[in-house]
């Protein structure tokens, strides 16, 4: 597993302050980059999902439909569904017999991943993973490995988190400057096609990050 992997596109969306960053800006993206994140689509109330769907649409703008159907998605998340868990827990505390089924069906770390698959028709392999401060680095690493292992046309490495008030500081790291309590999404599109930036993965290092987790060098 030593083929070169290239980063074809990077999309960052932050909810507060609102921003969208797309790299590289070319073609249609350069002429009309969105300046604010899209609001949640009408069929869904979830802010993080809305942000992730918007980012994924931009990420995959140049990806053919047949490639979308076979591509992979590796999504990193730290807080996962913690905010939805709290919502469901409040509903069952009020009355366990009438706990919210709608909230419960979203109490999985893989919920956003499932929404992306459902609404963008991504039928290839996908996984949600978590590893503290190193979560997104791991997602990029696994996505790069998956391109080759599963012979994928491309694979999206995704970081998506809804960091509740009081949760932002321990997990944001240097790359995230958003207000606490807001949603944040970052996506990299990886493939073997030349033309993007070559991804240089170091050894899986022994570096210990805060909290005792590990990252790639």
């Amino acid at each position, binding site marked *: 597993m030593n083929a070169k992997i290239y980063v074809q596109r990077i999309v960052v969306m932050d909810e507060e302050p609102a921003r969208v960053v797309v790299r590289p800006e070319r073609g249609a993206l350069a002429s009309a980059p969105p300046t604010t994140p899209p609001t949640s689509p009408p069929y869904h109330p979830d802010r993080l999902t809305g942000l992730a769907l918007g980012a994924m649409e931009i990420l995959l703008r140049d990806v053919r439909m047949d490639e979308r159907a076979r591509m992979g998605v590796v999504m990193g998340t730290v807080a996962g569904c913690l905010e939805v868990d709290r919502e469901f*827990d409040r509903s069952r505390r009020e009355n366990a017999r009438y706990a919210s089924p709608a909230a*419960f*069906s979203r*109490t999985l770390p893989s919920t956003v991943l499932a929404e992306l698959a459902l609404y963008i028709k991504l039928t290839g*392999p996908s*996984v949600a993973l*978590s590893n503290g401060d190193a*979560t997104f680095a791991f997602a990029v690493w696994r996505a790069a*490995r998956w391109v080759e292992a599963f012979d994928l046309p491309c694979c999206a490495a995704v970081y998506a988190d809804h960091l*509740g008030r009081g949760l932002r500081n321990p997990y944001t790291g240097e790359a995230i400057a958003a207000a606490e309590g807001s949603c944040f999404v970052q996506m990299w599109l990886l493939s073997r096609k030349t033309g993007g930036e070559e991804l240089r993965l170091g050894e899986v290092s022994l570096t210990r990050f805060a909290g005792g987790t590990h990252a790639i060098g």
Partner: protein
Amino acid sequence: MANGKGGAILRERFRPVYVQSMAAVTPEYASADALWEAWISGGKEMRPRLPGAGAWGRLTGAAIEAALAGAGVEGRACSLILATTKGDIERQVAWMRGADAIGAEKLDWPVPTLSQALVQMIESHGFRPPCYTVSTACSSGIVALIEAALLVQSGDAEAVLALGADVAGDFVMDGFGALKAVTATRCRPFDRGRDGLMLGSGAAACVVSGRPAEVAIVGVGIANDATHMTAPDREAGGLIRAIAAALESAGLEAGAIDAIVAHGTGTKYNDAMEATAFSKIFGGRATITGIKGLIGHTLGASGLMESVMAMRMLREQVVPAVTGLQDPEMDNLNFVVNQMRPMKLRHVLKVASGFGGMNAAIVLKLEGAG
């Protein structure tokens, strides 16, 4: 047979990765041996039971210790992949209620994320990098085994302990109750009278590496339905693609699969979807079994727990009966009913499907079986 187009296809034939040890623990069964004995002897169908305080630590600790001991290695020789849907959810509930009461920033204990559960295991057993948590709803356990195999194949790890664990406490019970997915009677997978799942708790673990051993992982597949957030694809598209990818990566035709350990939750729609997939790919050829009538649905642990039982089937050359099945609704399929079935087994398929259309499949092989 449906081919793998549209799903995951390994470019080259998957190189075998070997299972060095297998462990399984539930509140009712203290070891994989005890669970196996209960299954082949037609053990009692499960009755709902809460796992009790501290269950997460007890179950995961016991499964890790048993898997390491079985492989004759220490934690520092292995990487760790944890598969779970909710982790230590009862601890998380205590945190959430504290956060609601006084504010999250005033709590002086760490947010109980999935990473936090991983950190505790790394600190207590010394696992070596890479270590991470995977979550793909109820297919998580199989995905952990697949990731473990890929880490070994790529040389990113020499040995990996794949651990699947979940605890069905009040939070989970209330949730599935709200979805009205829980049986009022008993779990009866593939039965004409099935009326829902039974929740269970448990932890299962395997150490895998490149050192040849009795049982090998020879094929893997992951695919998504992309049809609904909670309901399975009635055409079984995702599961068919996952199975096709697993067969293709193993270099096998469907006829080479001797037995299948189904996901078999006992819900109307899951079992019908699985039956559709099995019927389309295998016809009535493969022998089918399932264990959730005995231990309940252990969620993120189930794929690994039931893979451990599939490995035991290969070793013992026996297919136990589908616990809870009396009157199969799909009479074109070859279910094992009432009595275990001794038979020659070389390849066993384990599948799982979860919320969000997440499907996974793994082909296990008995080495040296001709």
